[in-house]
Each structure stands twice: as structure tokens, then as C-alpha cells.
């Protein structure tokens, strides 16, 4: 590794290559520190040219690598186990903003919320809004095909990416394009939608050097409601009824009592009622006309489903507070216990109420506290279990409970990830979800971009289930 480190230092400068184990400790994990592995070294290119040169040097050396943005991922996807960690957070130039075409071209290390702030003067925003948006990077969002509360109405990252310059693991630079900016999200140019395949490939297909994304006009009007319920079931039922009524809220989020308690104790206290079993945070936006009808309908459906009260945010400050509480809820779990696991299953919305009760029962059975905070409108669950990793017995119970919860979600017709990605954390569930043939097809697709399997090795598809992999003994991990 020493010769490679010297080469990389020559490209990016000595301060941007970390090789001492003590200096690499901070890069052992992402935001799910239950998974911790040591990179062999970390390299942090500061320009596009440096990035390409680094990728070529790695290819020449045949060394596997893992790209990392801000390390806010929740699946262990950006962990480099004894290989090179390619940190992209220094590539944070906003290259171009085109308010007329409503696009922006940015480098991968640009922070999601920074992009929105940069275009706010044009009354535009970047719609995908993962809860970590104040810290996470656009590059990471593309790798994970990140979602967020407002994806219910506006779609996930995939729907907002128009074009990307990608450095393939071989060091080759390619343009992936899905037609011009004015084309609708679903229209693609001739040929296969390779950009569509790339977005959400969890860093296994290459690295983004720059990306052009769609910007969304700020809605004319936004109304945010907070409904509080005496049971989680009635909040889940309200969710199903709102969607069934044909309303498309901009966001529809559910938080249970344990989550409310953590948030209300934090600097992000939003004024959620601490004695509620669950709250539903709903938002409608768009043209001012007709919006009040949606609000009245949501209010009525919540009350009919058993809401104790429905409150409407009366100014932007209150709206911001209600949202900050929701978005920082994951971080606030540190108040409950020192460690945390979080899952990301997606289930049919109609099964939500039953599933939430089953999840609660699984928690009780294993003597664990399950906190739920999730995108109810999408049926995208995020059960959080705070625990103490130093307690071996509790850790074992957490592991069992998570496995049971995931199995239950799969059995209900759900899937294992909505927006966090498979990474390392959900690898064990891939074989329960897909047939060997399907997993094989995924490996074949990967081979198109990364024939030597050097990009984010060991993630997404379990190595043992990839038959083609075994047929290529030369591949190194």
C-alpha cells in the first residue's frame, strides 16, 4: 500500500492522504456505527482532475476502493474494509445554476441543503430531502437513490437526476444522459437508461464527477398539519384513508410516543404533544386554489380516524420547527441509549397498522424499546432500536428482533430498503428477497460498469450468492 500512498500523495497532496491507523479511526463507520471496519488508507481529491487521476491510479494498481460523501449513510454502504476509502466531500463546487432551464450542475460533495440554499433566491429548490439533508452530499444521495419526506409527492433522487459525468472503476470517464432538461422525469433518450441503472447502485458502478439535477419551483403555498392520536393504529389508519381519498400530500410522516419524547427533549423541540401515542405530520402544497379543500379533507379524515386534535402551522417559523423536529429525530435517539439500529423496510400502506402492532409485539417479546419515525405515506418504515452495545445480551436480542421485524415485513409483501440502501447492513436479507437468478442478473449488470469488482466490494449482493463472481477467480476483494 505504501507505493500507492506515495502515488496518491503526489496527486492530491500529502495532507489529503491519511494512512496512519489513528487518523483513520474517524473513517471506520458511517451513521450506523454498529458496523466498523478499518480502511487501508483514505484519499481526498479536491478537484475533478485529481479525482480522475486517483481513479486511474487505483485502476492501475488494481486496488479496490469505496466512495464516501459525508458519512451519513444508514446501511454501512460507505465502509472500506482494508481497502482504499475515496472521500469526495472536498469536491463541493456548484458548477452552474440555470434558473431558466431549472437545473443545477454540481460536484458530488455538495451538501443537499446547500444546493437548495444556493437556488432559493430563484424561488427554486432541490426536491429530494432526506432527513440528513443538512449534512449529506448529493453524491451520496445518488449512490443510495435517497428519498425523504417530500418524495411522496415529488419522487426520489432518480426522478431529479438528468445527467452525470461518471468515472468508471477503470478510470474511464463517461457521460450518462437521460435527455435534455426540459424532458419530463420519465422520458429518456434513445437506448437503455444507463443513468437510471447508475442512480442507486450504491457506489458499485463508479463515482460521479459531476451531476446535473432538476430544480423544482417553490410551491405557491404550503400548509402543514399536525394530528395527534391516542393510538398508533388510528394514525396508521388515517394515513391509508388520506391516500385512498385521492389526496397527494407533499409529505405524510408518522412519529410514535418514544420518538416524540426524544425530540421534545432536544434542541429541536417542536411542540409535539408528549402524551400522544403518535403524531401524523402532513403537508400539502401547490397552487393556492383548492389547497384549503385538501386541508379540510385531511383534517376530517384524521378526526374520523380518532385524532384527538389537528393543528395547522400558522407561520413559516412554526412549520420549520415542526419539520426540524421530524428531520432530527434519528439523531435525538442518542438521548434514549448509547447505540442505535435503524431499519428501512417498505410495506404496503394497507398493512401498516397491523405491522406496527406486530413490530411493537416483537419489541416487547425481546424486552426492547422500538421507536418508530417514518414516511407513512410511502409505507416506508424506520423502526429504531436504541440499545447499549456493551451489553452482549441486549445486543443479541436487538439482532434477533431486527431479523424478526424484517422477516415480518418481507412476509407482508414488503421489501428491505426504501432509501437507505442495502450496503452491508441488509446483505443478509437479500437472499430472502431475491432468487439466485435475480441476484445473478444483478451481478451481470454490475459487470458492465465494474468488470473487476473493485468498486465498493462486498456490498449489495452477497458474494456467495453471485455465481458469476465465483467463475471469475481473478477478481479481488
Amino acid at each position: 500500500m505504501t507505493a500507492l500512498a506515495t502515488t496518491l500523495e503526489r496527486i492530491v497532496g500529502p495532507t489529503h492522504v491519511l494512512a496512519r491507523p489513528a487518523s483513520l479511526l474517524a473513517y471506520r463507520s458511517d451513521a450506523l456505527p454498529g458496523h466498523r471496519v478499518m480502511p487501508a488508507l483514505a484519499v481526498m481529491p479536491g478537484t475533478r482532475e485529481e479525482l480522475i487521476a486517483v481513479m486511474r491510479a487505483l485502476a492501475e494498481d488494481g486496488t479496490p476502493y469505496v466512495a464516501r460523501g459525508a458519512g451519513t449513510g444508514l446501511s454501512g454502504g460507505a465502509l472500506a474494509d482494508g481497502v482504499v476509502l475515496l472521500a469526495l466531500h472536498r469536491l463541493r463546487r456548484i458548477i452552474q445554476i440555470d434558473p431558466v432551464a431549472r437545473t443545477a450542475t454540481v460536484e458530488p460533495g455538495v451538501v443537499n441543503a446547500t444546493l437548495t440554499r444556493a437556488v432559493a433566491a430563484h424561488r427554486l429548490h432541490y426536491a429530494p430531502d432526506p432527513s440528513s439533508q443538512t449534512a449529506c452530499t448529493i453524491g451520496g444521495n445518488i449512490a443510495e437513490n435517497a428519498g425523504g419526506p417530500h418524495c411522496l409527492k415529488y419522487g426520489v433522487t432518480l426522478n431529479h437526476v438528468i445527467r452525470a459525468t461518471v468515472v468508471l472503476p477503470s478510470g474511464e470517464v463517461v457521460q450518462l444522459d437521460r435527455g435534455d432538461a426540459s424532458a419530463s422525469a420519465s422520458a429518456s433518450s434513445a437506448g437503455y437508461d444507463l443513468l437510471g441503472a447508475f442512480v442507486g447502485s450504491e457506489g458499485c458502478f463508479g463515482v460521479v464527477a459531476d451531476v446535473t439535477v432538476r430544480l423544482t419551483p417553490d410551491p405557491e403555498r404550503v400548509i402543514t398539519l399536525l394530528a395527534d392520536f391516542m393510538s398508533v393504529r388510528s394514525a396508521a389508519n388515517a394515513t391509508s384513508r388520506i391516500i385512498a381519498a385521492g389526496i397527494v400530500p407533499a409529505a405524510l410522516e408518522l412519529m410514535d410516543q418514544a420518538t416524540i419524547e426524544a425530540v421534545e427533549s432536544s434542541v429541536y423541540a417542536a411542540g409535539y404533544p408528549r402524551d400522544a401515542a403518535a403524531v401524523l405530520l402532513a403537508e400539502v402544497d401547490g397552487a393556492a386554489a383548492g389547497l384549503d379543500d385538501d386541508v379540510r379533507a385531511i383534517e376530517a379524515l384524521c378526526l374520523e380516524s380518532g385524532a384527538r386534535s389537528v393543528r395547522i402551522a400558522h407561520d413559516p417559523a412554526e412549520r420549520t420547527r415542526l419539520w426540524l423536529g421530524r428531520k432530527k429525530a434519528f439523531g435525538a435517539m442518542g438521548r434514549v441509549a448509547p447505540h442505535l439500529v435503524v431499519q428501512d423496510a417498505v410495506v404496503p400502506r394497507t398493512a401498516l397498522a397491523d405491522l406496527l402492532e406486530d413490530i411493537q409485539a416483537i419489541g416487547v417479546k425481546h424486552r426492547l424499546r422500538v421507536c418508530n419515525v417514518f414516511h407513512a405515506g410511502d409505507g416506508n418504515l424506520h423502526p429504531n432500536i436504541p440499545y447499549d452495545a456493551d451489553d452482549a445480551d441486549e445486543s443479541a436480542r436487538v439482532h434477533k428482533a431486527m431479523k424478526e421485524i424484517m422477516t415480518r415485513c418481507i412476509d407482508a409483501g414488503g421489501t428491505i430498503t426504501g432509501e437507505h440502501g442495502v450496503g452491508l447492513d441488509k446483505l443478509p436479507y437479500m437472499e430472502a428477497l431475491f432468487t439466485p437468478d435475480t441476484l445473478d442478473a444483478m451481478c451481470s449488470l454490475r459487470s458492465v460498469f465494474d468488470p473487476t469488482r473493485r468498486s465498493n466490494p462486498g456490498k449489495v449482493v452477497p458474494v456467495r450468492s453471485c455465481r458469476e463472481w465465483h467463475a471469475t477467480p481473478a477478481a479481488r476483494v
Partner: protein
Amino acid sequence: MTGTALPIAQSPLAEARAGLDRCVHCGFCLPACPTYLALDDENDSPRGRLLLMGALLEGSISPDDATIGRHFDQCLGCRGCESACPSGVPYGELIEATRATLATHRPLPFVARFILSVFAELWLLRPVLAAARVVRASGLARLVARVLPARMGMPFAMLASTARRVAPGYDPATVRLASTDDTHHMDVHRGRAALLTGCVMESLFTDVNRATERTLAVNGWQLCEAGDQVCCGALHAHAGDPETARTLARTNIAAFEQSGADVIVMNSAGCGAMCREYGHLLADDPAWAARANRFGAKVRDVSELLAEAGPRQPASVPGRATTTVTYDAPCHLQHAQRITAPPLRVLAALPSTTLVPLTDSDQCCGSAGIFNLVRPEVAERVLDPKLARIAESGATVVATGNPGCLMQIGGGLVLAGSSVVARHPVELLDMAYARAARAD
């Protein structure tokens, strides 16, 4: 202060360990950290440093490791991360505990030791600051700042930026107010207030201290003195020398008890944050813990006291041109004391003034106590974006309520040849009162 090396298990860091467990590693602190943004290494971020603290406790890194020590040294202590942390990690406490732990293993840098020892001893501090005033008055500071290369010139530019035309005093009773309903303002007695005059404030910002007293008087506060007060000890506590900080704290507690004040007024955000934490600092000293808590509970920033009283709005002077003012929040006001609205209310009371927002006003300017003197290269990289945002704001005055920030931003503006000046909010209010009194 660099006594025998303590085993990690008995270190101040080990005592503060519970705070570390609160971190869930979410990374929401990264964009709030000026050194992460300036240095681009997660080891220079709050999340990274917390992880390194954990590794120190585990024994997986050595307290003698110079590279790791540098990451702790490079923390500004701005506590911007605390305002961003959903889990409430007490980062300020943890970094101080870490520094106190490391200080037993390796000496502080020479510059830091020198400055701290000067601040700990009045007989040393007074002549040093007096000499600084002479250099400033001679105009030499500004001259030297221009001649020297930027980094070496900065201390002189900082000094030059503290120069003021001496404001003539005025009788608080003669100040004409904007509202005619508010004529008997001197009759209201809000209570007795004693000012922590501070070391840097009283020497280099003498006028700000007088302005503080006058504006409080206009707003119904009766001033009283705490004669035997000393440095608040903030610089020492932040640098890893809590023992000297405790000695200074005890002297101050006794001095202010003598004064009979109802409230202890701060016009330096850094001192205010420290004084509020005397209870924590002396928690293990049974003779002083209760007295320290009582002291801490009486601490108020001057902007809080003024905002509580309105503040009283001075009458505008006809024909006076409008000034554009922006506000930069001192970290130790915004993050450590969570005081955000009162300084803006003080500025809102100024006649003929347009208040414009400053982007990233909650980000540190790089002053951070003596940080800019000990780590000028990092301080400079943190200051650059601040100066750029100030220029973009279009303001001609940037208001901020802390001597360190006034000098860091002021010095930066001097070096950049900018016509923008840095002023304490209280100075601006005082000048407006003075004009309203003179116009009588």
C-alpha cells in the same frame, strides 16, 4: 499545569464519559463545524473528535500522539455543534476535559502558555495591555499591520481595529427618546447591576465598558462596582488549565458577592459563557459550589438586560444618513448561552439604521479566545468566508458582542483594506443615545 501524566481512567475525560455515549454518529454536526469546513478532514469535525476521545479512553490511541493532539488543539471551542446536535452531546465540556487530560501528558504550545500566564496575573497583564494601548495610540499598529505579511500583521491589525474616537459622555437623564410616552424613564429602577469589566474589555475596549454602563443607566439599571475582580478564566479553562480557572473564579465570586449586585452584567460573550459555568467548574469544591451556582444564576448578557427594558429607543436626529448594519453572532452568545434575539432587539432600536441579514452569522469567525494567536493559519481559513459574507451583506458596520470577535473580524477588515468596521451593539446604541442627548 503540566503535572504528572494521569492514567486515562482517572482523567477529566473519563469523568465526562457519559456525554460521549450520547453521540449516535448522525453527522448533523459536520456542517456546523468551522474547522471541518476549513480543513476538510473528519478528524477536525465534532463527530471525528468525539470518536478520537472514545479511542483515547479505550486506549486504542495514545495521549502522546501529536497528530491526534493537533485535531483537539485545532477545535475552536465555538460549540456550534451543540446547537446542531439532536442528542445534546455536551461537546464544550468534553473538549475541555480532553484538553485538561492531554495537558498532563504534554505541555501546551509556548505561545499559549505565555498568553495564559499573562492573563492569570494582573501585575503582568496590566503593563502588557497598557503597552498595547501605547502602540495603538501611536498609530504604529495600523502601520505595522500594513507592512508585515498578513499572518504576522494580524495581531497588529486586531489591535488597530480596537481604536475608537473617545466618545464624550452624556447625562443619561437628558437622552430624548423616540416615544413621548417614555419621558420619565429614569424613574424606573430595574435593579442593581455590576459589570464584569474584563481584562481585554477594560484595556482595549474601555469605551465599550463605559457605553455599557451608560446604556444600562438609560434603561433603568443602577450600576455598582465589584472592585477586586479578575480575569474570568475562560481562556484557561478552554486551553486545558481548569485549576487556574478555578482560582480566578473564586476571586470573582467573592468580589461580586461584596458588590451587592442583583445581576452580574457581561458585555463579552466569552466571559459570560464562562461565568455561567462557574457552578460546573467548582462543582467538586464543597466550600464554593453553592456560591458558584448563585453567581452563575445572576449572570446576564448586557443585550438581555437592554432587551428586557425595550431597549428604550433614542429619538432620531433629523437629516442623519441611514447606516446599514449587520449582526454576527458570537459563538459564546449564540451556541454556549443560547442568546439570539436580544442583540437584534438592541440593534432594532437604532434610529436611521437598516439592519441586513448576514449569511452564516452563526458560524465562528475564528477568534476563539487565543486560538487566532496560537493557530493563526487555521483562524485565517475560518475568517475568510466570514469576511466574504460581510462584504456580500452590503453593511458598513458589523455588530458583534465579544472582544475576540470584534478584534478578529475588525483585524481582518483592516488587513483587507475594507471600510467596514466592527462594533459592539452597545456602542451603537450608546452613540445613538449620545446624539439624542446632545441634540437637546
